[in-house]
């Protein structure tokens, strides 16, 4: 009956995910939905804006220490990052760095579920992601920055760069991490390069388990709130840095695609 007791993380919305990673009763949302800071660019493109822009910032404590969780909601426009969501992430990272310099370090957790930069705000999104990448590296030089990728979308696009810069990356088996989504690869390079309907292949190539086994993620967790919380806390108390961003071992890319994948231990 243990299956009935597991509390799924992926099932929750961004707000509940952020809450669930902070100590009980400690969560306090910043710029919540009633602040009505929502994207002014979407209406002209036929999209109704969400009151929190799909990104939630929560302050609180984590293991008793000052903390901030930023979570994106994969259900609103694929969790895409526009001006407001991007500024929430970058701004929180900047404040965490200020806190460290003031001697009151704040643990920073990015619980991302995003297809990447929001097409409807492309230029503003790419500038925000530039700021996010810079802020992660700047903060990481001082203290751990932890990414949690355990949603139904995973992390794709510009934000996959950002998460690769974090000091710890916690992934679930259901999540995916890649630069280009399978449908984009199929559009740009053809179906023989990537069949975006071949779901098992997509997970074998970009799924959480593969990323963990390749050493690109620090922890592989089940889709369970308690397990993910414990992994996050552990990432701060026992930081285990990921390998530096050097090229991994890989077979000759001139091999035929399937042969290449097999040589990487991926059954196409």
């Amino acid at each position, binding site marked *: 009956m243990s299956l009935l007791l597991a509390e799924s993380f992926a099932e929750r919305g961004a707000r509940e995910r952020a809450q669930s990673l902070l100590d009980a009763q400690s969560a306090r949302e910043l710029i919540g939905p009633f602040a009505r800071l929502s994207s002014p660019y979407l209406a002209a493109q036929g999209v109704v804006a969400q009151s929190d822009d799909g990104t939630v910032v929560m302050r609180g404590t984590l293991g008793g220490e000052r903390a901030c969780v930023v979570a994106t909601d994969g259900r609103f426009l694929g969790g895409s990052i526009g001006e407001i969501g991007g500024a929430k992430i970058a701004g929180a990272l900047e404040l965490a760095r200020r806190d460290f310099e003031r001697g009151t370090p704040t643990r920073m957790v990015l619980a991302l579920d995003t297809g990447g930069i929001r097409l409807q705000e492309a230029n*503003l999104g790419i500038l925000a992601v530039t*700021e996010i990448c810079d802020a992660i590296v700047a903060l990481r030089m001082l203290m751990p920055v932890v990414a949690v990728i355990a949603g139904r979308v995973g992390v794709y696009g510009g934000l996959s760069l950002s998460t690769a810069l974090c000091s710890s990356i916690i992934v679930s088996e259901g999540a995916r991490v890649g630069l280009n989504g399978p449908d*984009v690869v199929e559009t740009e390079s053809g179906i023989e390069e990537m069949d975006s309907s071949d779901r098992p292949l997509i997970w074998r190539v970009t799924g959480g388990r593969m990323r963990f086994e390749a050493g690109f993620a620090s922890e592989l967790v089940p889709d369970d709130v308690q397990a993910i919380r414990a992994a996050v806390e552990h990432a701060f108390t026992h930081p285990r840095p990921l390998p530096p961003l050097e090229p991994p071992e890989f077979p000759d890319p001139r091999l035929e695609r399937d042969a290449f994948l097999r040589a990487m231990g991926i059954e196409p």
Partner: protein
Amino acid sequence: MSASVRGRVWLEKLAAGGAPVAGLPPSVLASDTAIDGHAVRVIAVVPDTHARFARARNGEVGIDEGFGLARAIRATPQGSAILAIVDVPGQAFGTREEAVGLQRALAASAEAYVLARRGGHPVLALVVGKAISGAFLAHGLQAGWIGALDDGAIEIHVMSEPAVARVTRMEREDLARVAREVPATARDIKTFATFGAIDRIFEVSDPDAPSGADVSRVLQTLAQVLREPELGLRDPVERLARPQAQATRAIARRVRDELQAQWDA
């Protein structure tokens, strides 16, 4: 897609007589030169029709390019500035790349730029061609100072136009209309400059074959910028405070103000 020669052309002109950096993949060119007496490492990603990754033969930033850029940046000599020549049609779209971890390759280069800039190397960028998506994030956007050519062929966006059309299920005419109404979706350099990230736009006679006058005008400006190294050391967040960004990025500033006000409430 016909491969663009601009990256190579501009690198060769701006770093004429420079010393090529060895040990890089053929698609990553780097050259140590001096501009008005300032040491500069000039770096470009260029097409390599023989690249071992087939999806990265037109100047895309792929596995070898991302890690190659990182190597070139990290090895920048003490006291040297960095100039990124940007002509990148996008990242490599391939299954092999995704399997190897393309996001890490691009992150390696972005990280190297951040660490170089934060470590005291002024980082400049000159956009001479396309600057699409992850490729631009990995090569150019982390610069403290960014110049660009005034040219209609320059395209800045997060996704190619056909792919945007497919994802948003909009016709190209609709996309053009939206780009007029919502500048954040435009693809041209002038609109992009309104967000405060472009410090200078150069008029040139021929972006593909710049004249001596074109080159010397650009070199003059670069020399001025290098005389004020703090320009190349500015963090991306400082763009929010620029005059051009007053209106266009007001919301991003407001988000930060409110976050700060509520942070310890």
